[in-house]
């Protein structure tokens, strides 16, 4: 920066930024596992849910394989901690609806049965799921963030989300030929926060 740059004058924001964005795991080989928020049964229900939003199929990995549930689990223990209660209550209500409507918790139902549960949640007809539509939309939105966001946050495993939509990855500088219509650039599979993420 030209002129004065009071870089020593650490702001709250830059403290937050350096705290969250310079990962401890990047500095040590014996990486500490990142904090998560969900109990194993809750995680299982969440995976059964997001798996139907984007199933693994002939096109390749789905939401679970992309780490979308990992993203949600980690963010609920961090940036999205305020949403944990609503989200886990929603998951419990979905499981309870699955039991009533199909005789088993979500994770034990077939793909078709799970689709029926998700459809009922999406259109608000699933009995006793509080704010069902809002819950569905929120989980879908977080699934998209987990599939297509930077792997730094715990999702987009092996950059499978970016490969799915053929996003060629964040580059710090982009040449004219990288903006051509007929020749999309080769995928650059890298996190904005370095090569320790996404693999």
């Amino acid at each position: 920066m030209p002129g004065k740059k009071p870089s020593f004058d650490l702001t709250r924001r830059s403290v937050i930024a350096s705290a969250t964005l310079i990962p401890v795991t990047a500095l040590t080989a014996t990486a500490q596992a990142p904090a998560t928020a969900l109990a194993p049964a809750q995680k299982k229900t969440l995976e059964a849910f997001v798996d139907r939003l984007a199933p693994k199929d002939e096109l390749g990995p789905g939401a679970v394989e992309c780490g979308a549930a990992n993203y949600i689990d980690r963010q609920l223990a961090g940036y999205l901690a305020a949403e944990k209660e609503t989200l886990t209550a929603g998951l419990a209500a979905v499981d309870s609806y699955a039991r009533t409507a199909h005789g088993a918790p979500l994770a034990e139902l077939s793909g078709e049965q799970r689709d029926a549960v998700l459809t009922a949640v999406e259109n608000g007809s699933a009995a006793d799921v509080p704010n069902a539509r809002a819950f569905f939309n929120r989980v879908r939105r977080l699934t998209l963030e987990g599939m297509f966001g930077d792997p730094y946050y715990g999702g987009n495993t092996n950059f499978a989300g970016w490969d799915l939509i053929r996003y060629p990855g964040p580059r710090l500088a982009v040449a004219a030929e990288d903006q051509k219509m007929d020749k999309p650039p080769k995928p650059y599979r890298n996190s904005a926060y370095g090569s320790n993420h996404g693999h």
Partner: protein
Amino acid sequence: MAINLKPVDVAVVGLGAAGGVAVLPLARAGLRVAGIEAGTWMDPHKDFHPDEIYNNVRGMVTTGDKIRREAPTFRTDANQKAQRGGPSPMMNAVGGTSIHYHAQSWRLKPWDFKTVSEVKRRYSASHLPHGSTLEDWPLSYEEIEPFYDTVEYEIGVSGKAGNIRGVLDATGNVYEGPRQREYPMPPLRTTDYQENMKAAARSLGWKPFHSPAAINSQPRNGRGACGYHGYCDRGGCHLQAKNSTCFTTIPAALQTKRLTIFDRAQVTRIISDNMGKVAGVQYTREGKEYFQPAKAVLVGSYTYENVRLLLLSKSKPYPNGLGNNHGQVGKHYFGHWDAQAGAGVNALFPMDLNLWYGAILSQGVVVDEWADDSFDHSGLGFIGGASMTAYMEKHPIAAAAGQTFGQAPEWGSKWKTWIHENAGRTASAYIQANSFPYENTYLDLDPDARDPLGDPVIRVTSGPKENERSAALYAQDRMEQWFKAAGAVAVSKGNPVGPRLSTHTYGGTRMGDNPDTSVVDKWGFSHEAPNLGLLGGSVFGTSGARNPTLTIQALAWRTADRLVKAWKSIAV
């Protein structure tokens, strides 16, 4: 008791796009300037990232802590109770919102400054929007032109002139007012997509041109050129190629050693003396209260906070708020009818567009045929229109979250197949309609909602407008035509319902000659408190069909220049 600080010549409240420019002519003239800013410096190496979650999902560069605490309430008519409208995307930082803005840097049109007389001349008075409080600006395009020129060269704007002293060039915008010389830099790099959109526009008989942008298209003043990395929208520039005031005018002002920055300082009141002149500003910093005496005060804290500060600053000479003895503070407010107000248009193409990288609106192609008074409005039932920009840069989450144009469900295997093929084949257009002030649209203090200091927040009252909606719908049809001429197989249009809280808001301290219909004079100084100047969109009387920042900066420079030249009559 407030701690008294050493007096300065000028206190500037807010070091964003407006205050960050005003400090430079003041400091260069040798005045001692205190720049008082609620945020602090951001570090391009630590605080800016090519990361959609950081920039676009979480707004780490767009919304400061202070604005979150004092987010205005919103309602569509005076009979409703206003509700908290969510944070407005204004940054508290040195550089403010110019850190993360799209940097499209427009001059308003001559028409924007004299809309009332032009409408009467070309059509009739009955064509003016019903219920509007429109009036001509107290200055003409010709009077502001030298300041546009100064700011374009000081901060650095890339573009192609369409009208130099009356000589037209259709590779620039032929609808712009005459400028004295070419832009300091050529436009940002073109792309296949933009060439495709330009060819389509020309096939319709239109004259497309590249966006004017406060982004370096080539190295300039020791900083590099744009890297087109695709995280310009709501992000800071890691290359410092975006000409935010924290990289341009503020460092230049610091070099004079006449500017002192007081960061993390929240101004709570502007203090006046018994004679009705302002005496300085009061602010809080880390729980302590300070008084900064000044011979003149320039307030550039964004439309909502400019109005709030005046209304909160009551005193004996100003029992209804500073400079509000005529009851005009908060009046003539309006938001911009743009894509955020529902005026956007989306398209699906049958080929990969490769829009991923770029510099958002600044690496764009614009059509101005349907803006302002570029076309005959006889029989249309509205005045104004909209500029339309087809642009580069899209992000993966937003691309996957986009609509499927009725061709696929929104989840499941079929959706996955659809986004695999089409996430890279959709494009959006940015539409910005000419917007005007109305009697039933205004700002005041909310009777209930307060910030943590106990001060009321701003209440926005802003309802539907027939004129602007008609203009936006008209422009959306033109945009659909443009996309289809470029090969789009499906187009969808938003529902222009009107602006809520926005980064494009205007009025509240309108500029005018008449104290009964405006708050500041043609120079930006209060009709009532002679040494109080207002900076920002809050002084605008019309929006234009384009982004406001360059006009805000030209006016900020002009107000500061006026203060320097008329120092004895204004400040002493």
